[in-house]
């Protein structure tokens, strides 16, 4: 191990994590057991996108055996404080609805019971009365003066607006040969880890302290947010994480409002409370990426050189601004020019609130939104100017000679050779063959296209970048924020074995293996000799606000600081061994489990003996070296300074480079996009573990492919949530995700201890737009919206069909229908029936307890069902436009646990040969639980219920069917 080529770092070792995970012995949150007496929580959530809570009736639920506590927003507010909001704006942010609900899935009531099944039984018994309010789900609409306002204190829905100017964009645009612009709307998607959130909270009233165990991922700046919400100092909030986490991708940062909620519930119950989020809860209300509307304009020379960019970004953070939002909008602030050398930049950033789930960390965090606009624009520049898109990219790339390169908006691009990486990718990724393939396919009339992307992938966030949302004056008042503290602790125990602890909270990234490699290299040991602990206990461990696993900081920051800690330990070991080996400390070599003299491997001491000596014989050691070996290192890069007066922000420490290209084919009949060939070139600095880097790339690629083709976190204009299950929120499977070709070009970062940069998020930034560019190329599309729905692409391929029946106007959640029934009864009789409550009770399927509240208004309890799906509803019916005995209008609304709906039907009665034809036209809108989780079935189900009503009306009017029909019916022939 003396030669530099013998390092453990850089090898694809099998992971130490895997033996346990492969045999079912992982210890994820819900595998870890609970203290005796632990209670289980379930959460009643809003079925409305926007509504006022009129009343919450909980007595029946309280009476259910096994129920320990029921907590509403008022109860939570009594013991907690609103979560802090990251902008200076008069708005509150509670983890549970107070007075109003603002998105489907917002917590309304927490039930705590002996087990989860009972807690859910109790949810069924709670009756919440809502008055629905108009909802707004589109960010542009939300800014309109007449839009419904979510937080009245704001006076509107605009939560933040800032303008930035770097260089001289006005002059650049004034003198530009071309101004080329693009308008894009980037949709919402979510990374949906397969393990959902979990929280176990205890409260000790004697010490007024909370002990929380949760699969939180950091950043631990949120610890301060939680403690403040719980009204305790940080040292009275002990936050621990389990050893294993079932994926996060940023999302498990968003568990923190539930930590507050469950901690408050534990306090109210006086017992430990555990909550495991289920998938429906997760999809509706965990942490989703922002959707963003962007207009981006470029000033361009005739040769395709971009001289200025003008960004106008409208960020939609959903119903609340939850910490650290609006960070998604500012994470890329330093590198808004991507991989290009553009000196003049104007930016307008606006943050808007809508009736959708609050946003938070998701893999790529802000990158996908930025690069979708920027790289679509680069393609458009090429098309507009008749240039090869590769030439436009080449002409604008930051030159290698300029590294490290300070961007216009303040990022310091640490290293890279973008041009070489790109040309290598084109060569090794068989670009020439791909061009030939496209030509051949097109000659056969097939729709084949090629897309390109060049991006820089930021990693290791500057904890101060989010303060760019504040004005320089506001920042001055708040005090500077910057840096990215990382820490590692290494200790040697009484037999000299080595343990490492880091504050990194891995969710499958193999931290234990890589850290063992890093430390083994420094200490001359084998990785299997090193034990690494990665769970965090804020009461005992070294940690800081930047701790956690996000912003791709593991390889550059955490592994780096582990190396520094190992070097410190190594220096101490050398000092201990030097007198025994009779050499100066600098001549002590650590290798092969020994400490030996430089140049004389026989003059050696076993590592364990030296490493354990302070435990057993401190008196033999110099006082300054007599303490047991335990080194805690801290590292924060000096490059990560606070934003300047001029709003220059070095938002991230490292910037990897990615160049992607791909070939896709769009099926001429189905409009389905097939990825035929995908090449992704990465420069992530020094590669610490090639197998894991490949895993990060293939994994990020799959997330990105999902965002490009399948995944959309979707709302109807009325605020209904439409993707509440994994049958509607479409995560790609092994059938949809091909294997990308992965290439590397290594430019070590000069700013990180190991030369490594982040790598896990880049494809989420590069791949969606690369696929979009390829599909645009295949079909000659001007505008592309993700996800690329086959139906949308097929419409482009097939052209409009003029003779097709009109479909529902887009985005409208209204169901329309009509029908008629022939009734063997006089028209007047039928009319009388419609105005007779007793008769109506018989007609409304499953109705009971009908009451007439006015001559034309009725209320009833109704059980409605389609197949096995049955639910009880409160129904109100009103008759109007009475035109006796010809026509009337029947308006109704229904509310129940499964959903709510309202509709109106126009009914006409016409005489025909002694019988009456009852004809109806209706429109209905339905929402709530069923709309979220079974939207596909909703319209058909509504149709069934309405037709049941009119069939019953006909039966009621003419109960006397012919005798033979009754007989056949009794015998079971026909209905």
């Amino acid at each position, binding site marked *: 191990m003396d030669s530099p080529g013998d390092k453990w770092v850089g090898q694809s070792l099998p992971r130490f994590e895997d033996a346990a995970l492969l045999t079912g012995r992982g210890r994820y949150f819900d595998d870890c057991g609970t203290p005796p007496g632990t209670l289980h929580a379930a959460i009643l959530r809003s079925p409305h996108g926007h509504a006022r809570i009129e009343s919450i009736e909980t007595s029946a639920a309280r009476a259910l055996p096994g129920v320990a506590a029921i907590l509403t927003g008022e109860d939570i507010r009594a013991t907690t404080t609103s979560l802090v909001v990251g902008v200076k704006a008069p708005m509150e942010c509670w983890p549970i609805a107070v007075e109003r609900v603002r998105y489907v899935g917002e917590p309304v009531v927490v039930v705590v019971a002996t087990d989860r099944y009972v807690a*859910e039984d109790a949810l069924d018994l709670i009756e919440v009365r809502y008055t629905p309010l108009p909802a707004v789900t589109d960010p542009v609409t939300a800014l309109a003066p007449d839009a419904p306002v979510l937080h009245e204190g704001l006076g509107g829905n605009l939560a933040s607006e800032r303008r930035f100017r770097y260089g001289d964009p006005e002059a650049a645009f004034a003198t530009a040969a071309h101004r080329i612009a693009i308008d894009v709307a980037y949709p919402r998607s979510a990374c949906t880890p397969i393990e959902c959130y979990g929280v176990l909270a205890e409260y000790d009233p004697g010490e007024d302290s909370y002990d929380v165990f949760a699969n939180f991922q950091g950043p631990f700046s949120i610890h301060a947010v939680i403690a403040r919400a719980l009204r305790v100092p940080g040292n009275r909030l002990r936050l621990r994480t389990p050893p294993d986490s079932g994926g996060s991708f940023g999302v498990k940062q968003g568990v923190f409002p539930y930590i507050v909620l469950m901690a408050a519930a534990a306090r109210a119950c006086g017992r430990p409370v555990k909550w495991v989020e289920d998938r429906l809860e997760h999809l509706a209300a965990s942490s989703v990426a922002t959707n963003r509307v962007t207009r981006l304009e470029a000033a361009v020379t005739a040769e395709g050189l971009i001289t200025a960019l003008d960004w106008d970004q409208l960020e939609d953070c959903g119903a609340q601004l939850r910490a650290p939002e609006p960070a998604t909008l500012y994470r890329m602030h330093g590198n808004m020019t991507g991989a290009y050398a553009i000196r003049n930049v104007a930016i307008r950033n606006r943050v808007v609130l809508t009736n959708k789930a609050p946003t938070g960390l998701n893999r790529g965090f802000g990158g996908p939104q930025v690069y979708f606009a920027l790289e679509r624009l680069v393609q458009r520049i090429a098309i507009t100017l008749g240039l090869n898109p590769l030439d436009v990219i080449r002409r604008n790339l930051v030159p290698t000679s300029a590294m490290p390169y300070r961007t216009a908006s303040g990022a310091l691009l640490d290293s890279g050779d973008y041009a070489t990486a790109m040309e290598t990718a084109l060569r090794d990724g068989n670009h020439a063959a791909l061009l030939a393939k496209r030509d051949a396919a097109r000659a056969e009339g097939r729709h084949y296209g090629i897309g390109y992307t060049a991006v820089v992938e930021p990693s290791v966030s500057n904890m101060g970048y989010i303060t760019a949302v504040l004005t320089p004056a506001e920042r001055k008042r708040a005090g500077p924020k910057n840096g990215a503290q990382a820490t590692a602790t290494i200790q040697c125990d009484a037999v000299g074995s080595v343990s490492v602890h880091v504050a990194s909270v891995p969710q499958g990234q193999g931290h234990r293996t890589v850290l063992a490699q890093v430390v083994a290299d420094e200490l001359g040991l084998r990785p299997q000799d090193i034990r690494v602990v990665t769970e965090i206990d804020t009461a005992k461990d070294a940690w800081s606000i930047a701790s956690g696993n996000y912003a791709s900081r593991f390889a550059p920051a955490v592994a780096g600081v582990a190396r520094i800690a190992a070097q410190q330990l190594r220096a101490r070991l050398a000092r201990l061994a030097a007198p025994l080996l009779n050499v100066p400390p600098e001549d002590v070599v650590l290798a092969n489990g020994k400490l030996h003299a430089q140049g004389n491997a026989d003059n050696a001491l076993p590592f364990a003996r030296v490493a354990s000596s302070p435990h057993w014989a401190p008196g033999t050691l110099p006082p300054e070296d007599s303490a047991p070996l335990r080194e805690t290192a801290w590292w924060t890069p000096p490059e990560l300074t606070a934003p300047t007066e001029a709003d220059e922000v070095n938002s991230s420490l490292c910037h990897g480079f990615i160049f992607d290209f791909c070939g896709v084919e769009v099926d001429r009949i189905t409009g389905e996009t097939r990825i035929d060939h995908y090449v992704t070139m990465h420069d992530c600095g020094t590669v610490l573990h090639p197998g894991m880097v490949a895993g990060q790339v293939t994994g990020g690629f799959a997330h990105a492919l999902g965002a490009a083709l399948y995944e959309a976190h979707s709302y109807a204009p009325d605020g209904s949530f439409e993707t509440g299950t994994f049958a509607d929120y479409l995560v790609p499977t092994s059938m949809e995700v091909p294997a990308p070709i992965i290439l590397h070009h290594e430019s070590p970062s000069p700013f990180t201890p190991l030369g490594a940069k982040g790598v896990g998020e880049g494809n989420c930034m590069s791949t969606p737009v690369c696929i979009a560019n390829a599909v645009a190329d295949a079909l000659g599309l001007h505008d592309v919206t993700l996800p690329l729905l086959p139906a949308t692409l097929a419409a482009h391929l097939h052209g409009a069909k003029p003779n097709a029946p009109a479909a529902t106007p887009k985005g409208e959640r209204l169901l329309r229908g009509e029908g008629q029934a022939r009734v063997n009864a006089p028209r007047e009789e039928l009319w009388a029936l419609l105005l007779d409550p007793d008769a109506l009770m018989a007609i409304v399927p499953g109705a009971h307890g009908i009451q007439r509240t006015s001559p034309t208004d009725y209320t009833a309890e109704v059980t409605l069902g389609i197949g096995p799906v*049955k639910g009880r509803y409160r129904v109100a019916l009103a008759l109007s436009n009475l035109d006796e005995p010809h026509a009337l209008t029947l308006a109704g609304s229904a509310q129940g646990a499964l959903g709510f709906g309202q509709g109106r039907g126009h009914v006409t009665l016409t005489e025909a040969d002694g019988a009456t034809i009852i004809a109806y036209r209706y429109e209905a809108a339905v929402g709530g639980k069923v709309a979220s989780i079974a*939207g596909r079935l909703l319209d*058909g189900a509504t149709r069934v219920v309405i037709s049941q009503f009119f069939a019953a009306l006909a039966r009621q009017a003419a109960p006397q069917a012919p005798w033979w029909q009754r007989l056949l019916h009794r015998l079971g022939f026909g209905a």
Partner: protein
Amino acid sequence: MKPAKFDYVQAETLDEALATLRAEGEGARIIAGGQSLLPMLNMRLARPAVLVDIMRIATLAEATATNETLRIGAAVRQAALQARPNLHPLLAAALPWVGHAQTRSRGTLCGSVAHADPSAEIPLVLLALQGEILLRSARRTRRVAAAEFFTGMMQTARHEDEMIEAISIPQPRVGEGYAFREVGRRHGDFAIVACAAVAHAGGVRLAIGGVADHPAARDLPADSAHWPEALDAFAHALEARDDLHATATYRRQLVRKLGRQVMQEAAACRA
């Protein structure tokens, strides 16, 4: 996301199951493989008072073939039938599209028919092949043609006290050709459009799932010159709707274009 409470009856004979259905009325629900019912129980969309498990009734677990028909009992799992040699080619083509291997191992054919999801493949095949549903109650037995059975979104001609005892599918006939195609967002998803075609000397029968509230079939002439017009009429007659995953227009287009392909394929492989 846990089911509400229900009693559970492990029926050992058909009579026991039928007696429970009769006694409990609409509060009872048959559980066979449970692959459609369990998600609805977990989401509390369905709340039966009692579940009647029929999977231990030995007589229901048989699939028996005669020269004319294949009779598939209510407890025959999809995977078991899929593994059967000489399976009807249309059924063999459609079964791999039913959910995933991990649900076909438990799910039954009759359960899928009883559930009557408008996108489901097995009801579609049953309709295309003009199969029958054998319904049984404590009082009587009746056979319903597939064309009469599926009446709406998860609506069938089954009465509350009845259960499906078996389905019956005609065996392949000499001179017939079969084809099946399906388009969904992802593999294993609910069909946006599923097409099953049966070609014979006199024409082609085309059945479409995923578009209207229940599967629908039409007999089209043998002469393919008439197909575009006939397919256009069929496509418009289906009450297609927009949803999250596809538009009504798209569904109709697929009926026209995929339908044509499937009919050609069926005609080409007439034995």
